[in-house]
């Protein structure tokens, strides 16, 4: 690289200057430092693309998905096979012993003195234990897995708990309002990831806590302006997407723009086809 060799040249120049007496030491700002800046400035000036960063905020599934028919059949079969191959557990042995003891008690020749000392087991039979456990289980009310009313509400983050949802925002692009992943224009002095974080904050008014997954973008969408609008300096925009995972689903303050939480299958209804093609690649709905 040229920029590296310049300081080296200067150092050897300086050494020779020190060696020869009576030479004036003059300070040189190494021109090596100046050239990269100008080159990037030249690059940015010549690059006709405006940079934007967008955030793909995903709310991961909260509950397990329902089993497909083959999965259910296989689950039942595996449970049956494992039961057949297993040994009797302590609880089952106890159940068997208690049943035996009951049958002996009901028989005519029963001598309680001959019984071995199982005091606790006679007071509290294994069956009674099972009944108490059953009672306690029934007294616990879990939250319902599926709520039909919430599933239909596209703006709620609690909809479709078994799937992962993506955040969409309605933003002004050029002349029209489009549904897209929240984006913001890149400004000097910040990295693209910071732009993406700014995009998220501006759209949701700092309500969501998101963990951004790394500094690298996960996808890019290039948009060329229609020929009429193209100029020397702006041919189009490049939107870089960054992935983030929603940590806390407390909404906090109301959002500025209209927001939607959609599954991957529903994305097609809201996004433009070319945009959808690019976005589809990195949103995994596994």
């Amino acid at each position: 690289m040229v920029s590296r060799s310049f300081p080296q040249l200067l150092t050897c120049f300086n050494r020779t200057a020190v060696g020869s007496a009576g030479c004036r030491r003059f300070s040189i700002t190494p021109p090596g430092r100046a050239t990269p800046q100008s080159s990037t400035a030249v690059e940015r000036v010549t690059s006709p693309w405006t940079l934007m960063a967008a955030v793909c905020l995903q709310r991961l599934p909260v509950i397990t998905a329902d089993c497909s028919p083959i999965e259910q059949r296989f689950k039942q079969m595996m449970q049956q096979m494992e039961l057949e191959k297993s040994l009797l557990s302590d609880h089952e042995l106890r159940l068997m012993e208690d049943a035996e003891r009951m049958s002996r008690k009901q028989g005519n020749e029963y001598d309680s003195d001959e019984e071995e000392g199982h005091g606790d087991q006679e007071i509290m039979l294994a069956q009674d234990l099972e009944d108490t456990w059953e009672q306690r289980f029934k007294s616990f009310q879990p939250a319902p897995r599926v709520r039909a009313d919430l599933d239909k509400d596209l703006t709620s983050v609690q909809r479709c708990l078994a799937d992962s949802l993506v955040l969409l925002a309605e933003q002004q692009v050029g002349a029209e309002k489009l549904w897209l992943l929240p984006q913001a224009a890149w400004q000097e002095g910040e990295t693209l990831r910071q732009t993406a974080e700014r995009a998220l904050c501006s759209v949701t008014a700092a309500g969501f806590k998101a963990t951004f997954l790394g500094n690298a973008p996960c996808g890019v969408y290039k948009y060329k302006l229609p020929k009429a609008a193209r100029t020397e300096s702006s041919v189009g925009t490049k939107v870089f997407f960054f992935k983030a995972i929603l940590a806390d689903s407390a909404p906090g303050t109301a959002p500025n723009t209209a927001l939607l939480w959609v599954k991957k299958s529903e994305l097609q209804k809201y996004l433009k086809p070319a945009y959808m093609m690019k976005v589809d690649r990195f949103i995994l709905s596994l």
Partner: protein
Amino acid sequence: MSLVVSRCICGLLCRQAVPPRLLLGEYFPGVQSPWFSPVVTLKTSAPLRAEPKKKNKVDPRREQMMKERLKKKLKKLERVPPELIPIEDFITPTKCLDETRKRIPPRLSFEESESRALLLKEWSRYKQKQQMAEVEAIEVALEAQREALEELKLESKELYQAALKPDPLLFPFTHEGPAYTPPIPNYEAPDGKYNDVTKVYTQ
């Protein structure tokens, strides 16, 4: 031993009596003069005192050698390597080898065993399709990222370098996985009692 006894008795007598020296002479052993031998003390002589036999010069050296040998033997015994901590999972507990615990294996009909075999094959095909789909999806996502980084490189070197840097704050990353039912808001789980009987080994 007898020396000690005689010394004790002497001591006792000395403490008890406070002799005026002028009046009583030889009867008080507190008076220390060579002419008056204390009568009250026990007459002890060498054999009575049972002194240990006097040793030759060779013996201390022999004793030292013996002691050194004993110490070496002790050190060798102490150099035993530390006992290995047993892995509890690899030791089959004797409860499992109990004969009374065996179940009666059920007799499966031909149809049942056939259906099981067919279901297993169907399952392996289903899982294979699932795995291929996952691998493909991951490859597509990686390709998308590679394209994005190439475009960024064309744009600006600094942003590209910034994108390549690893994020130190990302790890350790934790996320609560899906459960069967969603969490109940403002739910206080009851405390459970348990006795922890795990064996702790120290080396």
